[in-house]
């Protein structure tokens, strides 16, 4: 209501209101004294009439400064109720102070303000329980999501193992038999040719299964852990890569895999967009966090919304990690990932 006014305007308005009220009160008293000066002191009623709007005005000014919208509304209502309560008591006193009838309007006003206060401040009464419930829920969701992601990672590694020992091994055995058959068909070139084609098909299938398994997790990661796998990535990269840091223990498989693919993707990006650059990969533990950084001295200006980086972000967020990218043009690119180690 006073919002468009500046604070100074509002202060002046309230001052003016108070001065005018005082002036009117004085005039009324002078008129009363000039009339005869005794009998019923009727200006008291005028005082009450002047007091109520002034009290409400002042209350509203005060309420304006309260922090929340609910509290401001409550402040205005409390001012109105307070002004009315004072007016009621004054009217009772002026009217001869007989039976204390204002008890009824005062009670009504008190109930009104109490109900409103309850509504406005309900979160203080019930809030702590609600917040606790929410935070427990968040903990529970984080825990269950983590266990789903862990279970998924374990399942993927089991599939990889099963592929290796099952389908892949059978196909290899099949190619061995076909190879032997091919040899024995040396005197029947047409049949030998058919067998050779069958062997080549089986070999292609083995290659496809191998690519599939590598996409789940490269063997060196499962066998030797993150540090060795990252060093292997560095050696295979088309750009010079140094690896620093170290880990005192192996993080959970899902964390290792996420970290591995972050480094793999980041190095691929560097080789693609900054083929003249060199990269530095740093692995460190900070408290319960695994911190992985891939820095390069390329031209910078990477697009954090690009498909590759978005995919990485999702992989990292799935294990409650954080991914940051700093890539100012002219100052290289830094991909930094923090992953809760879990266990």
């Amino acid at each position, binding site marked *: 209501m006073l919002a468009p006014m500046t604070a100074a305007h509002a202060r002046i308005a309230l001052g003016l209101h108070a001065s005018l009220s005082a002036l009117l009160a004085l005039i009324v008293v002078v008129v009363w004294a000039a009339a005869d000066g005794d009998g019923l002191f009727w200006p008291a009623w005028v005082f009450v009439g002047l007091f109520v709007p002034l009290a409400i005005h002042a209350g509203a000014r005060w309420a304006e400064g309260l922090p929340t919208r609910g509290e401001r509304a409550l402040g205005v209502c409390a001012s109105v109720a307070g002004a009315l309560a004072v007016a009621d008591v004054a009217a009772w006193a002026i009217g001869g102070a007989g039976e204390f009838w204002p008890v009824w309007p005062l009670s009504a006003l008190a109930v009104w303000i109490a109900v409103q206060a309850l509504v406005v401040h309900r979160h203080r009464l019930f809030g702590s329980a609600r917040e606790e419930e929410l935070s427990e829920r968040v903990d529970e969701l984080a825990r269950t999501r983590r266990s789903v992601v862990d279970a998924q990672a374990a399942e993927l590694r089991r599939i990889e*193992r099963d592929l*290796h*020992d099952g389908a*892949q*091994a*059978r*196909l*290899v*055995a099949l*190619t*061995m*038999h*076909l*190879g*032997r058959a*091919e*040899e024995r068909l040396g005197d029947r070139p047409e049949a030998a040719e058919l067998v050779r084609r069958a*062997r080549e098909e*089986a*070999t292609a299938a*083995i290659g496809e299964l*191998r690519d599939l*398994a*590598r996409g789940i997790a*490269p*063997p*060196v990661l*499962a*066998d*030797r852990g993150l540090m*060795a796998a990252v*060093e*292997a990535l560095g*050696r*295979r*990269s*088309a*750009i*010079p890569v140094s690896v620093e840091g170290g880990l005192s223990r192996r993080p959970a498989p899902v964390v290792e895999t996420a970290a591995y693919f972050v480094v793999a993707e980041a190095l691929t990006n560097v080789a693609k967009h900054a*083929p003249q650059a060199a990269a530095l990969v740093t692995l460190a533990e900070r408290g319960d966090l695994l911190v992985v950084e891939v820095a390069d001295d390329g031209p910078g200006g990477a697009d954090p919304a690009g498909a590759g980086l978005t995919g990485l972000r999702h992989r990292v967020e799935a294990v409650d990690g954080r991914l940051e990218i700093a890539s100012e043009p002219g100052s290289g690119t830094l991909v930094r990932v923090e992953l809760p180690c879990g266990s």
Partner: protein
Amino acid sequence: MRVVIAEDNALLREGLIALLSDHDVEVVAQVADGPGLLRVVNGHKPDLAIVDVRLPPTFTDEGVRAAIEVRRRHPGTGILILSQYVEPVYTAELLADGAEGVGYLLKERVAEVRTFLDALQRVAGGGTALDSEVVSALMRARDPRAGDGELAALSPREREVLGLMAEGRTNAAIARELVITPSAVEKHVSSIFSKLDLPAGDDDHRRVLAVLAYLRAS
């Protein structure tokens, strides 16, 4: 030729034994884990050990570890790693003490029977046999423009020839592969030797040294 086999998958072990016995290769022992390999190499002194990478008890790189141990204790025994995947880290570890008598092949290469038997002979005789996948993984790794020490001096054709040498191919095989004459291959090979500054001497030994230089650069 006398060989021992370390392979935990019975299907593959039997397939391999059948194939080898077709060609008068004597399988003197077969084991299914890493410690077993050391035992039978000790006992039988074979010409060659054919070793799977993933073996019990760890089912990780047990085979590579056991093979390195065999190489350390019995330097004369050829080691042929058969794996379902290519892992340059393992190749590099096997070759750390030299490329004599070491091979690393994908398992499905066994089915190309002639080529496989050639590789067996070569490794048992102290030569090298690296899968073309291993070599091309290493090739992909280094962009020739990036410059990698002594290999930077080689022409693209010489790199190709060196890559095929690393697979263990003979000059005749390289000539067939690149569709050039054997004398052209010889010219490339001697150019590689001189660019890599390899000491004069036995050609087989120089080939091994060239391959090592190649792998070190990768």
